[in-house]
């Protein structure tokens, strides 16, 4: 089951990078308020470190994703790559004191169920090639 551990750790790293990216995006925006369509806003944005955290999160997620996709089945990979919505939600409650309200919980359950369906749909279409499994 060595490969199982590889996937598990790989997917956790992927979710971690995605979460770091999303949270850095949020901090970047918060520290550059108010939102304006001008260079003053861009200077505020790029003059702080957060926006670079967002870039690191995304670049890290990209390379983790490409590494996983070499061997991982596409269905579970697809689902796992979008499940950061859950981790980001939980982290926002903790980091930004955001209230967890009922519409968000119901919406999140429907979205996660949808992502799992899409993951299964991808799995069914992907027929493993000779020697791949």
């Amino acid at each position, binding site marked *: 089951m060595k490969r199982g551990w590889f996937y598990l750790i790989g997917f956790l790293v992927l979710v971690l990078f995605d979460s770091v990216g999303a949270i850095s*995006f949020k901090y970047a*925006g918060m520290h550059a308020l108010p939102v304006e369509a001008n260079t003053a806003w861009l200077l505020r944005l790029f003059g702080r470190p957060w926006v670079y955290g*967002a870039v690191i999160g995304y670049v890290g997620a990209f390379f983790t994703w490409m590494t996983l996709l070499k061997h991982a089945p596409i269905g579970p990979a697809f689902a796992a790559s979008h499940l950061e919505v859950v981790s980001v939600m939980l982290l926002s409650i903790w980091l*930004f004191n955001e209230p967890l309200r009922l*519409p968000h919980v119901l919406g999140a359950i429907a979205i996660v169920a949808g992502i*799992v369906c899409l993951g299964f*749909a991808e799995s069914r279409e992907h027929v493993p090639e000779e020697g791949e499994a």
Partner: protein
Amino acid sequence: MPTGSITPLIALLWVLNVVLDTGGQLAFKAAAGDPNAGDGLARWLYMARRPWIWLGIASYVIEFLIWIAFLSLLPLSEAILLGSINIVAIMVAGRFLFGEKLTRMRVAGILLVTLGVAIVGVGG
């Protein structure tokens, strides 16, 4: 500042984000899927001489800024859920532009994600 209620500006940023994300993905797909592109370095040079890859990069750069603006105006937990609609937009666009199959399982997934985003948008 973030209150959770969706103003016209937030709605506009949300739509722009979906359009740019989907447009960018499709542009990259068009660039990468060109059968005349060749291999290796020649493939990259071929892609660089055609507009698709640049259109994709431009879309992503603008989307990056739009997404930050969007997140500044909403709680992150709500914004990340609303952003899930991108998955649906890309699948539907892939169906129409590249003839990708929409199986029953995919349709179920698309409907569930859309339902979830609608619940968050209306009730948020």
